[in-house]
């Protein structure tokens, strides 16, 4: 996997800093961090599914929603224990993601994105129509069992989950399977021509991305204790996930994680000045500027600076 000393050093430094955070910042800020952790999980999930393969998912809330609703319904309506309902939710999300493979067999690019967006709409309609006694219909659900109490515990829980996801996905994508998925994004026909089944690789990307999305969605609902379909199945949520991944630098795992924190803080700092939806214009603008300056995102900007620093030192 080509791990170097500085990989360990950077991860260790980052982990220590993040775990020390409750001593460094206020409870209010910590709550913002919690949201950033979950957004990071969703952005990483998007990166696994779309970042390398180029099969752009606009329907991520579809996956997150399956995970969230499955565990919410199981625990609240059927008294299933959380330790059991979360794994079930993850598996159901992965099964749901196999729907993505149907359009992915035939179409790419914007059409694929549109079909996945339709999946999100579909599930939004379904939770309202089918068995609202289970899903809570338009109003959603509340009083769902929570895993943690208080900001500090919530922060540690979300951070641990985010780090576990980030490190495992980062390691996974450093193996040859990451190379193969990138190759699909560059030239799918040549991947076939190299003897690799692209359908199987895409399915792997979708299942892994869904694993992360389902896990994140399930934990998120047990952090919030409630579920609001209109906020969950919202195009703004889709954009927040995608912009976080792109701003940070897609197909790097680290980038989407960084992007999620960057974006959460940007939105948070803009809140006092722009309480309404105008904030989204500002972040759209900032995302655009970063994108124009470096289409590969913050990750690439930092890497370039690091390379310059290294070559400067050795020269």
């Amino acid at each position: 996997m080509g791990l170097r000393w500085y990989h360990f050093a950077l991860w260790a430094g980052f982990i220590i800093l993040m775990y020390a955070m409750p001593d460094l910042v206020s409870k209010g800020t910590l709550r913002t961090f919690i949201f950033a952790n979950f957004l990071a999980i969703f952005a990483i999930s998007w990166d696994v599914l779309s970042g390398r393969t180029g099969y752009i998912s606009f329907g991520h809330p579809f996956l997150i929603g399956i995970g969230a609703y499955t565990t919410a319904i199981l625990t609240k309506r059927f008294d299933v224990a959380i330790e059991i309902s979360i794994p079930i939710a993850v598996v159901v999300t992965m099964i749901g993601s196999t729907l993505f493979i149907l359009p992915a067999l035939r179409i790419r690019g914007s059409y694929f994105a549109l079909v996945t967006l339709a999946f999100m709409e579909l599930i939004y309609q379904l939770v309202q129509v089918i068995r609202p006694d289970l899903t809570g219909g338009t109003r959603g659900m509340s009083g769902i069992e929570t895993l943690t109490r208080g900001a500090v515990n919530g922060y540690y829980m979300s951070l641990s989950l985010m780090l576990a996801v980030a490190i495992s996905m980062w390691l996974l994508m450093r193996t040859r399977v990451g190379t193969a998925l990138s190759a699909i994004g560059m030239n799918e026909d040549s991947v076939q021509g190299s003897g690799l089944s692209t359908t199987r690789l895409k399915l792997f990307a979708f299942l892994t991305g869904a694993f992360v999305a389902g896990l994140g969605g399930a934990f998120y609902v047990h952090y919030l204790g409630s579920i609001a379909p209109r906020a969950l199945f919202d195009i703004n949520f889709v954009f927040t996930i995608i912009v976080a991944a792109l701003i940070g630098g897609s197909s790097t795992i680290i980038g989407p994680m960084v992007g999620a924190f960057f974006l959460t803080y940007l939105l948070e700092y803009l809140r006092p000045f722009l309480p309404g939806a105008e904030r989204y214009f500002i972040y759209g603008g900032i995302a655009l500027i970063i994108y124009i300056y470096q289409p590969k995102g913050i990750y690439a900007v930092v890497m370039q600076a690091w390379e310059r620093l290294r070559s400067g030192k050795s020269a």
Partner: protein
Amino acid sequence: MGTIAIGEKRMSHPLEITNLVKRFGGLTATDDISFHVEQGQSVGLIGPNGAGKTTIFSLIMGELRQNSGTIRLYGEDIGGLSTPARIKRGVSRTYQVPRPFGEMSVVENIRVGLMPDSIWKMITQGPDREREIELALSVGFSENDLNRRPDELSMGDLRKLEMARTMATDPSVMLLDEVFAGLTKGEIAQIGELIQQMRRDGMTFLIVSHDLKALEPLIDSAIAINYGSKIAEGDYADVISDPDVRSSYLGVA
């Protein structure tokens, strides 16, 4: 199944094409073509532009599906198989228009070709760096080229990369589509020597080339096609002096 398959392998030809037809709308790009290539033989496939050479390659690889006719690899009808499944059975091709992975280095491009079609193995086993470098050097790359990206490579280099990626899939039958186009004399000699080396090692070839001078020493026999039909087959000298071939292909009567 093991012993039977081996027995079959010995008796049947590496590649056998029977009454192959491919139509694009009203155009018959492959018109009832039949031929076979024997074990360890190298066959040149020649014909003017648009004769249907590349189409035959695409049909053999399963990138296009024939309207009728059969394609057999070591006796097995591979007509219904996917491209990766055919590659697994030992046939592989280069592309006339090189199709590298644009944001990967030369070694990474070769790495994709070397990968087993098993996600589990991709994850648990690291890349075979020695083999990657060995393949890159064998097609004529220098050490300095290994980390170059396709946009920094010449047409000659891109063709070498095509060769290397194709060889990486470990074929026993190789289909080469215009591997000499855009290459310098030195590069042609180098790729030619590589093909000769593989012939000595028992590789079976079907080679398309407009560069007849480069092609001639590399083949045991030739097949000429025009408008999708086979017009001559046999010794290169006989094929090339065939009146039909001369009029169609060389533009002389």
